């Protein structure tokens, strides 16, 4: 067997965590370097895996199987395909940059990095698991460190936000768990043996009622994490309260767990269920996109703006999923990646500002570009990515989503409302996004120089690591999207083939 690269990606943070346990609390720099090194190993391995992924062969690669609980068909089996590979890369990038974004951390450093690495282990685990049990297990592993990270190192109503976030996510995952168990039982009855292997589970024919029911459970369960309206409120509050690196990881990666779960454990396993619920997802996504963007427009706290912008942007992911075709799903996955990088960039920069200025009140800023030109430039680029400017990764993603949903030919409400109208409504979000993002840029960075902020220093040294890495990633995949889309498409094609092969059924509307 080859080198188990995926397991190594996941365990590198664990190794770092154990090392940090041994380092005394006062050796702060050593702790940070250890964390950076551990995540760097993950990053390098993730890039390596990304490059080595064999497009010609396609499918799941870098497989590794260890029998775990044979009686229940639980195996530790990992592997990535075109859908999960980019997300593994995303996680690696975001955590690596996140460590650097936390470089200025001075309070309870040891615990912080322990929890942070714990969190990221869970996230990696979700993306590489091929076994539904482990998938869920890792999914939940990520939640509790999050609570502590926000609760201890957060700001602005941190305890409330941390609790809210934890409960939302757990309640959501409760539904997913029920779905997974029901699925497992159904499948093992059909198959005659127990298994949690997603690929095998996908070969089972589930009857329509069951599909509808379980997909709905998955929709709630993973939808909370996406977050789907009206289950989204944990996210702005959580974003705002979380410390920088956690916000990055949280908005950058954790939300993607939801969408990924929805695709992997939802659409892939229950194509008919997905077809049934897709119109509802599409309608909710419009609310996400438009309503989220509108709310972002009137926020007074920088992080709240980004928090609601995440709600809005993840709406596009939902739109891509709801379109249930190759373009849409390609776009959805791409958007997951792009939004992850983009929002991580935002949070890194806002964290930088907050750390120096001790406020995030937009109204108190103005003209910061004078004092912090690099931060301003980075923020502007983030903003441009956010509003879908060509040349950046988000544009490709959103474009594909729009194309996908636009080319979906389906009539809702008895033929009165074409799906296309929904997609047009959702696309209109790009206008609102541009408005609020550029307004924030304007209010924060432009305008006359304010002397009270003259003490702010521009980002430099290690602070620039996240900015540079994240922007470079956005540009790379924005200018050369084939690098990304070919990979994703490789994973999406069989999935959509399954959806198309499924029985044609009407949607909920």
């Amino acid at each position, binding site marked *: 067997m080859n080198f188990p690269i995926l397991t190594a990606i996941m365990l590198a943070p664990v190794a770092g965590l154990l090392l940090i346990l041994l380092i005394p609390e006062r050796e702060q720099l050593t702790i940070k370097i250890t964390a950076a090194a551990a995540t760097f190993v993950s990053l390098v391995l993730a890039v390596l895996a990304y490059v080595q992924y064999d497009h010609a062969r396609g499918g799941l690669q870098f497989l590794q199987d260890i029998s775990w609980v044979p009686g229940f068909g639980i195996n530790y089996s990992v592997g990535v395909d075109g859908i999960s590979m980019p997300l593994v890369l995303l996680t690696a990038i975001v955590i690596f940059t996140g460590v650097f974004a936390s470089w200025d951390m001075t309070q309870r450093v040891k615990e912080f990095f322990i929890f942070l690495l714990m969190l990221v282990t869970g996230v990696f685990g979700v993306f590489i698991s091929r076994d539904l049990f482990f998938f869920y297990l890792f999914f939940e592993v990520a939640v509790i460190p999050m609570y502590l990270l926000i609760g201890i190192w957060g700001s602005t109503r941190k305890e409330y936000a941390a609790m809210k976030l934890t409960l939302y996510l757990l309640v959501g995952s409760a539904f997913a768990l029920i779905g997974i168990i029901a699925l497992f039982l159904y499948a093992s009855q059909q198959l005659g043996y127990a298994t949690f292997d997603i690929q095998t589970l996908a070969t089972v024919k589930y009857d329509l009622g069951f599909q509808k029911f379980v997909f709905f459970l998955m929709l709630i369960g993973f939808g909370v994490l996406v977050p789907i309206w*009206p289950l989204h409120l944990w996210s702005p509050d959580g974003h705002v309260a979380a410390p920088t690196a956690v916000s990055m990881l949280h908005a950058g990666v954790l939300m993607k767990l939801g969408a990924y779960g929805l695709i992997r454990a939802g659409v892939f396993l229950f194509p008919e269920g997905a077809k049934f619920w897709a119109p509802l997802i599409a309608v909710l996504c419009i609310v996400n996109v438009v*309503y989220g963007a*509108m709310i972002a427009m009137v926020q007074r706290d920088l992080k709240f703006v980004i928090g609601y912008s995440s709600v809005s942007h993840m709406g596009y992911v939902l739109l891509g999923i709801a379109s249930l075709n190759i373009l849409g799903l390609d776009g959805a996955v791409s958007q997951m990646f792009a939004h992850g990088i983009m929002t991580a960039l935002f949070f890194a920069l806002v964290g930088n500002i907050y750390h120096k200025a001790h406020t995030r009140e937009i109204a108190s800023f103005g003209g910061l570009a004078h004092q912090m030109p690099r931060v301003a430039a980075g923020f502007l680029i983030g903003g441009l990515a956010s509003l879908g400017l060509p040349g950046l990764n988000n*544009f490709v993603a959103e474009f594909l989503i729009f*194309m996908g949903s636009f080319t979906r030919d389906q009539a809702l409400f008895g033929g009165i409302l074409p799906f*296309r109208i929904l997609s047009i409504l959702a696309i209109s979000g*790009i206008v609102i996004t541009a408005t609020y993002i550029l307004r924030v840029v*304007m209010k924060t960075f*432009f305008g006359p*120089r304010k002397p009270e902020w003259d003490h702010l220093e521009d980002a430099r040294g290690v602070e620039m690591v996240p900015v540079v890495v994240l922007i470079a990633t956005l540009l790379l995949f924005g200018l050369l999207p084939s690098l990304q889309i070919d990979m994703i498409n490789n994973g999406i094609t069989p999935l959509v083939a399954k959806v198309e092969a499924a029985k044609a059924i009407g949607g909920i509307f």
Partner: protein
Amino acid sequence: MINHAWLIPVFPALAFPIIIFLTRRVRPLSALVGIAAIGASFVMAVGVLREVLLNGVTMAHPVEYASTWLGIPGLLKIEAGVLIDPLAAVMLLVVTLVALLVEIYSVGYMHGDPGFSTFFGYLSLFSASMLGLVLANNYFMIFFFWELVGLCSYLLIGFYYHKQSAARAGLKAFVTNRVADFGFMLGFFFLFAIFGTFNFRELAAAIPSYQNTGFLALAAALVFIGPIGKSAQFPLHVWLPDAMEGPTPVSALIHAATMVAAGVYLLARAFVLFASLPGIMLLVAYVGGFTALFAATIAITQRDIKRILAYSTISQLGYMVMAMGIGSMTAGMFHLMTHAFFKALLFLGAGSVIHALEEQDIFRMGGLYKDMKVTVSTFVIAALALAGVPPLAGFWSKDEILAGAFDHGFTGLYIIGTLVAFLTAFYMFRLIFVAFFGDRRAGLHAHESPLTMTVPLVILAVLSVVSGFVGAPFVSHGFSSFVYYGEPHHIEPNYGVMLLSTIVALAGIGLAWLLYGRPSDVPARLAERYRSIYKLLVNKYYIDEVYLWLFHRVGLGLAEAFNWHDRHVVDGVFDGVGDVTRLSGHKLRLLQTGNLQTYALVIFTAVVIIALWMAAPVLGGVIQ
């Protein structure tokens, strides 16, 4: 050369990162890099045009090559490609030439500005994007660069970001364009949904045989929204006057000569789509015509030199759009070209004045001709060209539009066009008489600009004079046999129209001289007499106010409402669930009284209740 045409945007594209990351601290080098890059592009553009002329590349037989930028097998092929036909070749030349001249001019104009290098970087990025847009062989790519030029416009309008008004203007420009781009995007999505491709030529081949014109008309109308925004047509014109907050060379390059013309260029590129839909064509024509008139009326009351020019630009763009609408792509493009030269010249001239005076209000200027001979004389040439005085460039191109409207039977539009010609001549010369002639104002220390600025003015002045001849009706194998839609055609001179438009132009100049040529209180009296109209015009028909009201009251109001809803209703529901849970815990806790006999009582009550619940089997019968 044509085969390497893809390099044209690459030079400035490379210049951008070089300037931003490498040479930013060494200003002369930054300028040099920028100018060299666009110079190389210009040379190549000339070469391309030459080959197009020599090698028989025509509208019907363009050169196209592409590589796949993003492909999804069987579903989507997005190309990064180059389409060179006479249309593109002309546009390339215009863009590179104006950009080159503007960059040279900027060396002088921006001298001493702290953002000198950045400015050249942005200009390079803009040039690259604009050239990419020109070369695009498909809708996707044109959209891609369309957005990028929008970005550059945003960056350059907000170049003086310390000015609140500049920052706001940039935002306004971007957002207004976004609205338009949204429509544009939907438009070509519809096209893709119908035909499955973005490629212009493939679409051109497919469109004529498509039957469902209703659907196609929807797509075309949506595509047209793009030009409405980019080319500042009513009702999305509001951003352009504000865009004058940017440095003047930017106004010349982006907001007069090139970017704003991109909308017209798109109409030309997509002409096959529009040409098949008479209804949409009419819409285009009337939007253009209306904008032309509308903007011209505003221009006659403005005081800011750049704003006057901005409204003039809107008006002229309206002309071009109208030309497209009446089916004369040739005339539209011709006017685009000549307009690029003389309007760039006007802006650069205005820039020269502003550079000298640091003043933009024409009524605070006066008598500049004594100190700024080159500037003023080139400015006057450009103004004559714009006013349509023969034999300057503007005359020929405008005349072709009017003749086209007349010939095709659009009498209404013809009248509008003529009226606009009159107004144009009037407001331009109002500007000239007020600003350049008359008495010198006290406290003004005008001086001629440096050579880097005046040389481009002179070059453009020459072009403003001569460029019209390529399309004059007397010239055989002129512009109309080069850039056209359908079949090449030769335009017969329509002497009646020519005569009328010449008269009208001269009348406008004359009226301006009457009112503003010497000290007079007539304008003030007129303004007093027609006070309501005057106020309407000065306030630009209150359109900005309406939009602001819509945005602040309706948009932000709705957003606040949503915010409140989210924070109180949605959050309230979920927090409420939490509170109810907590509260029920607090209440249920009180059941635990601490009295053990109560506990025992509960136990036995429970037993009794269970027995009663199961009374059927236990007390009344036997279960199976």
